[in-house]
C-alpha cells in the first residue's frame, strides 16, 4: 500500500530532522513565490481604492488609509464600460461561433471520414503551426484590406477576426486527437442505421465531446478577451474597439484619468477572466493535461 498523496518526500523521510527542516524551508519559499505572484494583482486593487492624494504619496503606502471608491465612479461615468464590454462580447461570440463550426467539421472529417488525401491536408494544417501569428501582421493587413477574389475591405471590422478564426491548427489538432479516441464502431453503427454524416456529427460526436469543447471555449474566450495588439492595429474607429484596446486608448493614454482611475479600470477588466478561471478551472487543467500548452 503506497502512502496516498506522497511524492518525492515520504512520511519516513519527514521523521529525520534535517529533511523536516529542509522541507519547511522549501515550503516557506513556495509561500513567498505565491505571495510575490499574487501581490502585484492585489496591488492593482489597492491602488484603485487610494484617494487621489494618497496615490501620489512617496514612497507609496502598502495599504490605503481608507477605502476610496470614487475612482470607480469616476472611470465608470467618463468611460463607457458597458459599450466596450458589449463590443468585446460580440467580438468573442463571432470568433467562437465561426471557429467552432470550422474546426469541429474539419476535425470530424480528418478523424472519421478520412477522404483520400486527408493526410496531406492534415500536414498542411500542422505546418501552419510553424507560422508565427503577429510576425505576419503586414501581409495579413494587406490581405484584409483587399480580400483576394472578393475585393472586400475587412479593416476596421470584426470580420477581420471572425473570418480567419477557423485557421487554428492547434485547436483542430486537439479536437482531432479527441475524436480519434471515440470508437469508430459508434459512428459506423449510426451510418448503418441510416444516419447522414451531418446527423452523426450533431447527435453522436458533438455530445460526446462536451468536455473538450468546453476547454476550447475557455481558451477562445481568454485569448479573445485579452487580445490587444492585432485589434489595436486593425480597428481604427474608437467606437468599435474591444474593451482592452479601448482601455489602452481612452483610459490609459487619456489625460482625463488619474492613476487610481486607471487602476480601477484595470481591476474591472481583470475580473471577468479571473472569474472564468475560478469557475471553470477543471476544464483549464484538463486542457493543459491534454495538450501540454497553456491557453
Amino acid at each position, binding site marked *: 500500500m*503506497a*502512502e496516498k498523496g*506522497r*511524492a*518525492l518526500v*515520504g512520511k*519516513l523521510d519527514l521523521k529525520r530532522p534535517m529533511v523536516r527542516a529542509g522541507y519547511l524551508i*522549501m*515550503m516557506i519559499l*513556495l509561500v513567498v*513565490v505565491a505571495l510575490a*505572484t*499574487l501581490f*502585484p*494583482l492585489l*496591488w*492593482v486593487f489597492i*491602488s484603485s481604492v487610494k484617494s487621489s492624494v494618497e496615490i501620489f504619496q512617496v*514612497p*507609496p503606502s502598502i495599504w490605503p488609509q481608507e477605502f476610496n471608491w470614487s475612482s470607480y465612479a469616476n472611470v465608470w461615468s467618463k468611460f463607457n464600460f458597458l459599450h466596450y464590454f458589449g463590443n468585446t462580447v460580440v467580438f468573442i461570440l463571432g470568433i467562437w461561433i465561426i471557429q467552432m463550426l*470550422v474546426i469541429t467539421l*474539419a476535425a*470530424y*472529417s*480528418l478523424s472519421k*471520414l478520412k*477522404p*483520400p488525401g486527408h493526410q496531406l491536408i492534415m500536414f498542411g*494544417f500542422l505546418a501552419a503551426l*510553424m*507560422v*508565427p501569428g503577429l510576425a*505576419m*501582421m*503586414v*501581409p495579413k493587413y494587406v*490581405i484584409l*484590406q483587399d*480580400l*483576394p477574389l472578393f475585393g472586400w475591405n475587412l479593416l476596421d471590422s470584426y470580420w477581420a477576426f471572425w473570418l*480567419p*478564426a*477557423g485557421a487554428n*491548427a492547434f485547436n483542430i489538432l486537439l479536437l482531432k486527437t479527441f475524436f480519434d479516441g471515440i470508437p469508430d464502431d459508434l459512428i459506423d453503427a449510426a451510418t448503418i442505421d441510416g444516419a447522414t*454524416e451531418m446527423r452523426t456529427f450533431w447527435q453522436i460526436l458533438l455530445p460526446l465531446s462536451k468536455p473538450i469543447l468546453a476547454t476550447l471555449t475557455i481558451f477562445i474566450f*481568454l485569448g479573445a478577451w485579452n487580445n*490587444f*495588439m492585432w485589434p489595436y*492595429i486593425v480597428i481604427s474607429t474608437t467606437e468599435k474597439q474591444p474593451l482592452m484596446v479601448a*482601455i489602452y486608448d481612452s483610459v*490609459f493614454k487619456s489625460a482625463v484619468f488619474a492613476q487610481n482611475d*486607471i*487602476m480601477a479600470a*484595470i481591476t474591472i*477588466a481583470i475580473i471577468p*477572466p*479571473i472569474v472564468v478561471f475560478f469557475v471553470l478551472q477543471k476544464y483549464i*487543467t484538463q486542457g*493543459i493535461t491534454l495538450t*501540454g500548452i497553456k491557453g
Partner: protein
Amino acid sequence: MVEDIKAANMSTHARKKLMGYLFLLPAVVSFLYFVWYPVVLTFIMSFQSVNLAGATSFVGIANFKTLFADPVFAKAWANAGQFTIFSLLIGYLLPVVVAILINEVRFGQAFFRISVYLPTVAPSVAVSILWLWLFDPSLGLLNKILGWFNLPASQWLLSSQSALPSLVLMATWSGFGGTAIIYLAGLQGVPEELYEAAEIDGAGIWQRAWNITIPQLKPVMMVMFIMQILGTMQVFAEPFIMTGGGPNNATMTILLLIYRYAYTYMDMGVASAASLLLFIVLSILSFIYFKLENRAA
C-alpha cells in the same frame, strides 16, 4: 438483391467521401487565405516597394539593404538575444522548481496552483499598465521593497541598462506559472508506488529526484526551452505599451520595429523583409520544437 446492397454501399461510400471534403473545405479556405497566402505574400512583398494604397514595384534586394543599414534592426536582434538569455536565466528553472515544490505540498495544493497560474489569465494590457506602475521609480512598489532591504533604488524602465532586464522580470512573473502547471501535470502522472519502491530500495531523496522526478520532466523541459525562445522573440505588446522601444532603443523588439516600419514609416516592403527574416528564424526553431515534441510524445 446483393447488387442493390452493393450499389447502396457504393453511394454511401461516395457520399462519405464527398462529405469528407465538404467538411474540410471551410478550414482549407481559411488556412489558404490567412496562413499560407500571407507567407507567400511576405516573400513577394519583401522584394517590392509597397505603399499603403497598394501600388507596388519590384525593387530587388533594396528592402534588405535598407534593413541592414538600419542600426536599430541590428539592435532589435541583439535585444532579442539578450531578452532570451535573461529570461532563460531567470525563468527557465523557476517553473521546474515551483512545480516540484507544489507537488510536494500535502494540503492546500490548489491554492498554490491557482496563485501561480493567475497572472497567465490577466490581459497583457492590464499586466503592462500594472507593471509600469510598479516600476515607477518614486511612486512604485518595487523601489519601496528594495528600500526595506536597504538596497539602492533602481530606475527600472527609465534607464537603458535596466529597461530590458525589467521587462524580463515582468515577463517571468506573468509566464512562469503557466509553465509550472504544465510540469505539474507531468509530475502528477508519476505513481506513488514508484517513489515508495525506490525508498524501500534505499534511494535517498536526491537519488529519487534525479532518477524519477527529473527524467519525468526532461522531455517537457526540452520543449519548453524552445517555446520560451519562440515566445521571447515575439515580444510586442509589452514594450509597445510600456516603453515604445526606448530608452535609446534598449527595449526595441523585432515585432515593434516591423510595426514601426509598416505603420509609422508606411514602408510595407521593408516591414515585409524584416518579417521574412523573422519568419525564417522562427520556423527553424519551430521545426526543432516539433522534432523534440515528437520525441517527447
